[in-house]
Structure formats: C-alpha cells, structure tokens
C-alpha cells in the first residue's frame, strides 16, 4: 500500500481501525452498564439496607426502673435523673486518636476506654458502647463543648437507682449493675443489651423483668460525621412496674437497730401469710455503690471480707440450729405420742450407745424433766432421750414436713436448702450407714443438721400457727402479674405453703412452753417483754456444719452461734422473728435482739389501734410531755394498752382449723 503524502487520504486503514475503536467503546460501555446492573438492579435491596444503616441511628430511650415501696406505700427505692455517656462507633472511623481527649474530659484512663472498646469489639457496630455513667456537670459540659470534635460521644438521660442510706434493707432489695459479659453470652438473657442495667441481687434480681420496663428508641438521621440532621420515628420507653413489698419500714428499722453491728441475720415474718416484714443481714453493703459501676477495690473488699457482707444470711447461712431445733423435736415427739409421757432425770448428761452426752448444764442438771420444762429449760438430756426413742427416721420425717432440708421458696435469689440428715441422706452423700449415736446429736439440733433463719422462722412460726406453714415472700400478693406466677413458682421452688396436721393439745403444750422461755425460769429471761405475749426458743449451736464450714473458709474462730426464734402472740402469731447471731455465744442474746423486734411490732400495732380509737372520738387535749399510754381509757377497752390480743391467757388458744380434727386437714394448700 502506498501513501502519497500526509494530506492524501487513505480511508481504508483508518476506517477499519476506527470501527475497531467503536467496538472497543461499545464493549467498555457495556461492561460499565453490567456493573451498574449488578449494583442497582441485582444488589439494590442489599445496598439500600446498607444506606439506611449508614444514615439511621437508633438512640435508646431508657425506661425508668419501677420503684419499690414498703407495705404501707412508703418509698424504699427511688430513681433519680442522671446522664450517661455512650460511644457511637462508625464504619471506617478510627476512634483511637480521640481516646486521650475523651479520657481527659470524662476523667477516665485511656486504658479504661481501650478495655471498653476491646470488650465490645464483637458487638454490632451500630450498638453504642457505654463509657461512663452518672456524668458530673462538668463532664456533661465537656461533651456539649466538643460536639464537633467528638461526634462519637452521645449522652443519654436516664433514671438511676437511689437506694436507702445506711445499707438499709440492702440484702433484700439487692442492687443493680451493668449486665455482665457472661449474662450477655447466655441465651437465657437474650433480651439484655450491652450496658443494660439489670438487677443482680435481692428483689432487684428476682423481679428484674417486671421492674426493668422496656427501653424505647429514637431513630435519628445522621450524616457521615454522626451529626444529627433529622429525626424519624420514636418508640417511647415503657417504665418498669412499681412494686410494693411486704417489708414494713418500721419493723425493718427496728430489726436493723436491734442487730446493730453484730454479725448475723434477722428475719421477721407474718406466719399467717408468709409476708416478710423485715430482713436484715450483717455485715452489709451500700447498694448505691453498685448503681454506678462499682469500683474494683470496693468490690474486692466486699467479696474477700471474711464476714461475707454480700451474703444474705437470712436465707443463705445454713448453720446448726442448736436448741431451736428442739421445737421441731417436741412437735415430732408429741405427734408421735412419745413425748407426752417421757420423763427424764437430767443429771447433767447421759450415756447413749456407749458415749456420754452432756447437757448444757453439766453440773447438777435439770433434775426431773418433762416436755414443758424440757422446752423452756432447753434440757438436752430430755431431747437426747426423745431422739433415741423417735429414731432418725421419724425425726427426719417431721423435720422435712416442717420444711427443713429444703428451700422455703422465698422469692429471693440464692436461698440455700440447709441439711436435714436421714439414713438415706447419709447413704447417698457419704455412702455410709447411719450410726444410731448420730441421732442423739441431731436431737438437739447439732450434728449434720443445718438450717437457715428463714427455714426456722417458717417452721416454728408454722408450729405456733397450729401447723399452717406459709411460703415466705417479699412481694405483696397481687403485685406479680399473672403471667409471671408460674415462672416465679418454678424459679423459687421450695416447701412453700403447707399444712402439717398438729393435735391442738400438743400445739398448746409447745406454745405454752415457748412462752416460758423469756421468763425467769426460762433460758432467755433477758428477752422478757412486759405486757406482751412473747414466746420463743433459744439456741446455741456449737459448731457449724461441715458443708458450711468449708464454704465459710475454716480459719474463723468458731464460737457458738446464738439463735432465737420468737413469736407473738404465742398461738396463731402475727409475727415470728428468727434471729441468728454469729459468734453470739448464747441464745439469750439473740433472744434479746428478737424481743426488740417483737416489741417494735407490738408497739406499732398498739399505736395504730390507739390512733383508730382516737380517730373515732374527739381528740383529748394532750399536755406537753404526755405520752400516748397515759390517755384515758375508752369504753370497751380496759386500758389504752388494750385488750390487745398480745395478752393471751394460757389455755385460751384456738385451733386455727376449728371444727376439724387436725388429721383431716393433712393436705397441701393448692
């Protein structure tokens, strides 16, 4: 092919090549169109979701937790407004550069922030991470002032828990805290999100689902810097349900004061209903310290303290019940028809199966002793003998009927079952035969027997009520929504409500004997309450059970634990108080403590009755310095102290099940 010159056109070669160029262009454009097709037609849905994820951020609206009230509607646990700071992570943005500034502004350590980021690194990116709670005003101002530099910081208004001061009722209320990683990983708690505040103990834990309410959220439109540029929908938060507890603030306060600084526990129940009026465990802790994330040092102190401040001893201390167990023994003995006719001559001890068992009065002993004296004098020899006669099988049967060795089913987390030994129990747990000698120790609440204060309160309160035992509970009946009831009963399985048929004669024998205990001839004369029909039983337990010993960590000096379980009035009591004083040496000390609670209760009842009476007639002028007990008597009431049922003349007791023989009602309550 010959080209003439530059200006001479030869069209053939370029034409072909230009056609090639056209094909190349078409091919390239088709590739681009196919790329668009892939994204815009095939992938549209996916990318639309991603775009929404980009621009819409869910800002949680935290639901205020339900408040807690005592039985009279007085506030126990309240909320207060507080501001929390969250970190909003974003695709493709690195926060590490901002951390020092954030740390400075929020008064935190950079390492703290890093550990939070690390902890939640697997959480979905759109989930805000909790940085700090309960911000101070200057920390809030810092965030406000750095909206542009630190758009990743977000504040959320919320309601925080305000617990009573001075550790008041700390164990029964429990505390809340940030949900732990373990809980988050547990499918049972799938509804928890990181940063959620959840109940971790006490009522807060048991009724968490009812108290917590439902968090709402606000959908906000943000730009790539996280700045809010618009708002979409809003799902309002539903506040948690307020709950009314069975606790009586006055009785609770009296119990706290009565126990003072001593280690131990008090639980006061209304045996007619099982309502817990007061529950104290010492030493205690401040739940407010948990409301914001608890300081590590503080936490370590709480969990390493040998006195176990976090342990609710009213339901978690399983210890030898000592002589308080004799009430159960007496019940068993009388109901089996053995104790009525049993007379022993206590010389300060007796031999059984070749071993000498001492009475607690080793020199001289109690002399000739029958059941009544055996109870109020707490004669060991009598109960050794009774135990021998009954045998472990019957003792165990009755103790189980009365709820020992099982949880009571109180609606608090962590209740323990205690131990009520039997031949089968020993075979099962120790693969050994039961030795008859062991039965003797069990007769005075020693040996392998271990009980919790709440068990004893339920059992002895139930005996004093003629055999009607109630499930102790801390939430007012009717406060629990119906849909939670089955789960509640399942989660807090225990002996619950039960009727143990008792012969009214035996009932009177036992309760009358118990009423002698706080008398000069009884074991707890110092617990005497003038003018109040106070009955009870002391206990001084020599050793803790082996199981409990290992749990408590043996090193502690194992002084005697003092017990007292008291009721008023002696039959069909309105209140039963079970007191444990660790290292309290003697039951009469515990008796004194229980008496203070009883006294507070009775005084309150009388005051209320008095007020009712006053309300019915024009108030009498009260002189300065006059006390209410000096108001003149009112018609129909013999004294202002009045005709109260706390004055119960002996023998006036009525069976709680009139018209029915005890045996005929041997059935469980529905």
């Amino acid at each position, binding site marked *: 092919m010959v080209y003439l010159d530059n200006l001479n056109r030869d069209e053939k070669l*370029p034409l072909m090549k*230009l056609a090639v*160029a056209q094909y190349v262009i078409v091919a390239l454009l088709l590739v681009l169109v196919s790329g*668009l097709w892939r*994204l815009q037609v095939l992938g*549209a849905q996916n990318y639309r979701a*991603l*775009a929404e994820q980009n621009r819409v951020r869910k800002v949680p609206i935290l639901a205020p937790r339900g408040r807690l009230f005592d039985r009279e509607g007085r506030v126990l646990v309240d909320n207060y407004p507080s501001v929390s700071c969250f970190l909003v992570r974003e695709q493709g943005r690195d926060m590490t550069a901002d951390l020092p500034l954030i740390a400075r502004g929020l008064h935190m350590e950079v390492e703290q922030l890093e550990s939070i980021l690390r902890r939640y690194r697997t959480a979905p990116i759109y989930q805000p991470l909790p940085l700090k709670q309960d911000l101070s005003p200057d920390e809030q101002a810092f965030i406000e002032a750095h909206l542009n530099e630190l758009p990743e910081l977000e504040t959320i208004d919320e309601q925080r828990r305000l617990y009573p001061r001075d550790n008041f009722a700390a164990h029964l209320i429990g505390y809340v805290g940030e949900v732990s990683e373990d809980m988050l990983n547990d499918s049972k708690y799938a509804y928890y999100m990181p940063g959620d505040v959840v109940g971790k103990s006490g009522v807060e834990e048991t009724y968490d689902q009812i108290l917590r309410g439902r968090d709402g959220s606000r959908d906000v439109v943000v730009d*790539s810097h996280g700045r809010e540029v618009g708002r979409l929908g809003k799902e309002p938060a539903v506040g948690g349900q307020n709950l009314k507890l069975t606790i009586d603030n006055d009785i609770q306060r009296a119990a706290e004061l009565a126990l003072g600084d001593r280690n131990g526990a008090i639980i006061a129940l209304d045996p007619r209903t099982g309502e817990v009026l007061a529950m104290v465990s010492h030493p205690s802790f401040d739940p407010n310290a948990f409301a914001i994330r608890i300081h590590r040092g503080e936490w370590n102190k709480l969990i390493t303290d040998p006195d176990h401040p976090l342990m609710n001893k009213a339901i978690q201390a399983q210890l030898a019940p000592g002589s308080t167990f004799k009430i159960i023994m007496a019940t068993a003995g009388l109901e089996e028809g053995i104790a009525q006719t049993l007379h022993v001559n206590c010389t300060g001890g007796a031999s059984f199966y070749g071993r000498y068992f001492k009475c607690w009065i080793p020199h001289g002993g109690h002399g000739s002793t029958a059941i009544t004296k055996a109870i109020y004098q707490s004669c060991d020899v009598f109960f050794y003998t009774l135990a021998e006669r009954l045998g472990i099988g019957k003792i165990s049967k009755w103790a189980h009927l009365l709820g020992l060795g099982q949880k009571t089913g109180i609606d608090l987390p962590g209740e323990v079952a205690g131990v009520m030994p039997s031949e089968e129990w020993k075979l099962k747990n120790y693969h050994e035969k039961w030795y008859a000698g062991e039965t003797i120790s069990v007769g005075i609440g020693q040996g392998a027997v271990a009980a919790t204060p709440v068990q004893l309160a339920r059992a002895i309160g139930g005996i004093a009520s003629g055999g009607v035992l109630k499930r102790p509970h801390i939430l007012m009946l009717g406060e629990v929504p119906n849909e939670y009831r089955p789960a509640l009963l399942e989660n807090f399985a225990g002996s619950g409500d039960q009727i143990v048929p008792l012969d009214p004669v035996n009932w009177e024998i036992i309760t009358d004997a118990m009423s002698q205990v706080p008398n000069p001839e009884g074991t707890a004369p110092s617990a005497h309450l003038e003018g109040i029909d106070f009955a009870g039983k002391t206990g001084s337990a020599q050793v803790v059970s082996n199981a409990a010993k290992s749990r408590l960590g043996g090193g502690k000096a194992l002084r005697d634990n003092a017990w007292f379980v008291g009721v008023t009035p002696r039959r069909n009591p309105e209140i039963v108080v079970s007191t444990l004083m660790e290292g309290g040496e003697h039951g009469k000390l515990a008796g004194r403590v229980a008496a203070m609670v009883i006294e507070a209760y009775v005084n309150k009842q009388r005051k209320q009755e008095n007020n009712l009476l006053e309300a019915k007639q024009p108030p009498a002028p009260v002189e300065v310095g006059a006390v209410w007990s000096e108001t003149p008597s009112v018609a129909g009431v013999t004294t202002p102290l009045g005709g109260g049922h706390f004055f119960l003349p002996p023998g006036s007791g009525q069976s709680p099940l009139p018209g029915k023989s005890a045996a005929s009602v041997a059935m469980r309550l529905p």
Partner: protein
Amino acid sequence: MRRFLSFRDFDWVLLGLVLLLSVISVAEIYSATLHTKFVGFHKTQIIWLMAGLVGMFGLSVVNYHRLIDYVHYAYGVSILALLAVMVAGTKVLGARRWIKLPGGIHFQPSEWVKLILIVAVARYFTNLTGRDLTWGDIFKGFALVGLPMLMVLKQPDLGTALTYIPILLCGLFLGGIRWKQAAILGLAGAIAVGGAWYSGKVLKPYQKARLTSFVNPDNDPKGSGYQIRQSLIAVGSGGIWGKGATKGTQTQGDFLPIPYTDFIFAAFCEEHGFVGAVAVLLIYFFILMRLIQNAQTAADLSGTFLVMGVVAVLIFQIAVNVGMVVGLMPVTGIPLPLMSYGGSSVLFTFLALGMVMNVRMNRFVN
C-alpha cells in the same frame, strides 16, 4: 488552500449532546453540594462552562494544522511549566500540582499537557504514516509522552498521568503498530508495571492501597476502601429509578466522598437510578460515536489523529471513572469528563471539542 469556514459545518449535534450532559452535570453538582460548605459550586461550574464554550468556539476557528505546526513550542512550554510545578508548585495534600499565578488563579499544567500531547502525538504519528512503525519510531513516541508523564507522576498525580497513556496507545494503534510489536510492548508494559509496583519507588504506598482496595474494599475500610464502599452503597441503593434529585442519602449525608467531582457519577446513580445512569452512558456513547464519525470524515490523517486522541482520552476517563464508581476499577482520582466539577477538566474537554469542531469544519477542505 485557505477555504471559507462556516459555522453551518459546526457539529451542532455534538454540541447539543455536550450541553445536555453539562446541564445534567450542573444539576447534580447543585444536588451534591446542597448541604455542604461547597454549596453554590454549580454556579461556578456554569461559569467554567461558559468559559469552556468561549474557548471551544475560539479554538474551533483556529485551523488545526496551525496547532500541529506550532505544537513543539507548546510542548516545550508544557515541560517548563511542569518543571515549575516541581520547583515552585503549591503543595496541597502532599502533592504539588498547581502553580499559583498572579490574581489568585491556580493553574494546573498537567491538564493542559493532555491537550498538547494529543496534538503532539497526532503530529508525530501523522508524519510516520506511509510505512510500518520501527522500534525507533515507537520509542520516540514513548519518550514524547513518557517525559511529561513521569513529571506528572512525580507530583504525584497518578490519575492525570494515566490519562496520557491512551493518547499514546491511540497514536500507536492508528499509526500502524504491528501485532508482534504490540504483543512485545504489552509484555514489556506488564513487566514494567510489575517492576514499578514492587520496586516501591514509582508509586507511594497510599497510591498502591488505593489501586488495590477496590478488589476488596473491606481490607482498607478507613481509606479508599471506605470511599469505594460508600460509592457502591450509593450506586446500589439508587436502584432502578433512583431516590430523586437531592434525595440521595449517601450523597446528602456526606457519606459519599467528593460527590461533586470524582464521585459525581455515584451521586447521580444514587439519585437517578439505573435508568438515569444508562441514559448518561448513552449520551456518552452518542458523543463518542459522533466524534469517531468526525475522525472518519476528517480532511486528512492528522485530523483523524487529533479527534481520535480526544476520543481516547474521553473513553479512558469515562471507563476509569465509572469503573471506579461501580467498583470495577481502582480509585485513581480521574474526573468524569463533562460531569465532574472543576475548571481544568471543563476547559480541557471544551478546548478538545473545539479542535474536533475545527477538524469537522475543515472536512471538505482539500
């Protein structure tokens, strides 16, 4: 052989297509800058378009042979300008690309070099027609384009430097390179690219990251991977019909990077969907076909070379830019001609079209 030039011979169809695209561009720039501090850029763009139109008409009456005759001066000035940038250029974001001229105008020589290279390559290869290309011819061609290209690469401005390559390839292709030579060159090119990649001297690490992150955007979610990811989300979420003008969440929410320049097509795709995107590509298709027709009807080979040089640059930029937006190409910072905001890009395109117009108007000159 001076003949009368008539604007009746002006390519009004081409101009119409170009103006249509310009209107779309202005609208999208308006939408993409609506909620940013760049609001009002569409007005600036209109001014650039006006200037471009003036330049286009101006250049369209300048005989392209004249341009070819004097291109060696322009080439020399270009090299000097690029040298000036290297020495005294304004440093923006670590790259020296601009020279500050009196009056506050920032002059970016690398865009103009593109235009001059088109003319220079046209002249060089036109003179070589009539015989097969020798290796010497090829290497001279490489040197012609390679010198300014390396200087631009040094700035560093990878994107603009890359646009010089299609000018050379187009020249070689039309100038009559043989298959064997093309194959050898292809192989050598591959080796050179590989060597440059691994030597670490030619490309900076961020450039490399940009080039590779399109394959898997999540490898580099903070940098260019983020850009690509956001671009894909923008394009994909537009769907078939788009979200509507000024309604693109990716664009308006500032998730899409620079939605008025390099990623303007992503913004357009988000707001106008697959239908709108294909329509724009169709307009490009018609423009390119029209240009090739003009190349075909050119009075002489130099005219064909000129027009095809413009075509090569345009299709390259379209393919690379749209390819980048849809995730088929790496992020190179190449603007989309006639769509992206920016004076240099607008002026280059319109001046190039001015040359094409002149080639067309001279098509009956012989």
